[in-house]
């Protein structure tokens, strides 16, 4: 019985190995396709041919796949040099949403607290004229807008100026020379300008 089991296992392993060997070149090609799709359209054909030729210089199928995986990283890096501004814009939108969420959360919490104080007043005093007492009213009406203002970007900027913090994104002087080490970095003040500089070969 053990011999039969060993034969079946060996057969299955051989079958799996053959299958993997047949699929690995296709996998490498697929990875090159994935890598190339990260690039600008005008660069895709060039890099598809260049990277396909590159893969052929490596003999083993596994080493080709490993090399192709590296090309996916390369594609992401090269493509990322162009999509930087888009990512930046998306991140700033997310940051804006988070700030809004924080502000709304603060206001909501404050109102919940205010309502709790009022409810406490209602339970303590049965008369309607007495349960809207002045401290509770001031808290309910005055504090939430104040907190909303404190969380607003305008207020953040004013506080940052007061305590001497500088915005690191705006501190870079515009028109700074472009070094070959980082041609994808922001050169001018506008992101569109940068895209033109990095993609003018198209």
């Amino acid at each position, binding site marked *: 019985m053990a011999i039969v089991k060993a034969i079946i296992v060996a057969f299955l392993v051989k079958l799996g190995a053959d299958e993997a060997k047949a699929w690995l070149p296709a996998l490498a090609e697929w990875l090159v396709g994935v890598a190339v799709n990260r690039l600008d359209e005008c660069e895709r054909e060039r890099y598809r041919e260049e990277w396909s030729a590159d893969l052929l210089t490596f003999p083993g199928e596994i080493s080709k796949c490993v090399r192709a995986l590296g090309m996916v990283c390369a594609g992401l890096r*090269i493509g990322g040099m162009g999509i930087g501004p888009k990512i930046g814009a998306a991140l700033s939108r997310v940051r804006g949403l988070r700030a809004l969420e924080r502000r709304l959360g603060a206001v909501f919490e404050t109102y919940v607290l205010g309502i709790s104080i009022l409810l406490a007043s209602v339970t303590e005093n049965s008369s309607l004229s007495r349960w809207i007492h002045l401290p509770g009213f001031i808290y309910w009406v005055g504090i939430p807008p104040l907190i909303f203002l404190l969380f607003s970007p305008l207020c953040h900027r004013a506080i940052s100026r007061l305590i001497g913090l500088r915005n690191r994104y705006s501190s870079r002087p515009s028109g700074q020379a472009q070094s070959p080490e980082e041609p994808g970095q922001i050169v001018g003040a506008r992101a569109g300008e940068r895209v033109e500089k990095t993609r003018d070969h198209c």
Partner: protein
Amino acid sequence: MTGPTLKVLGQLMDAPIKGLSGADVSKTTGIASGTLYPILFRLEKAGWLSSKWEDADASEMGRPRKRLYSMTSVGAQEARAAVSDILQGSGGLAWQS
């Protein structure tokens, strides 16, 4: 300038006139493709390198053409200047002192 960039520049400065493909540079320097191609891309965009397809027809060869990279004259000058700056900054090479 990073170590891999220096390696690539050094390799391409000693390259034959026809140039070296990315695979050749990768094999001699040991830099992985994920690092190598962004470096080549940046250097080419900066004008330090130029690239061209190998002089052969893909259909005749039965394989895709290689892209051959070579150093431009501007790139060679800039690379030498960058290397000398680095050497001055680090006080020179240990075996030269």
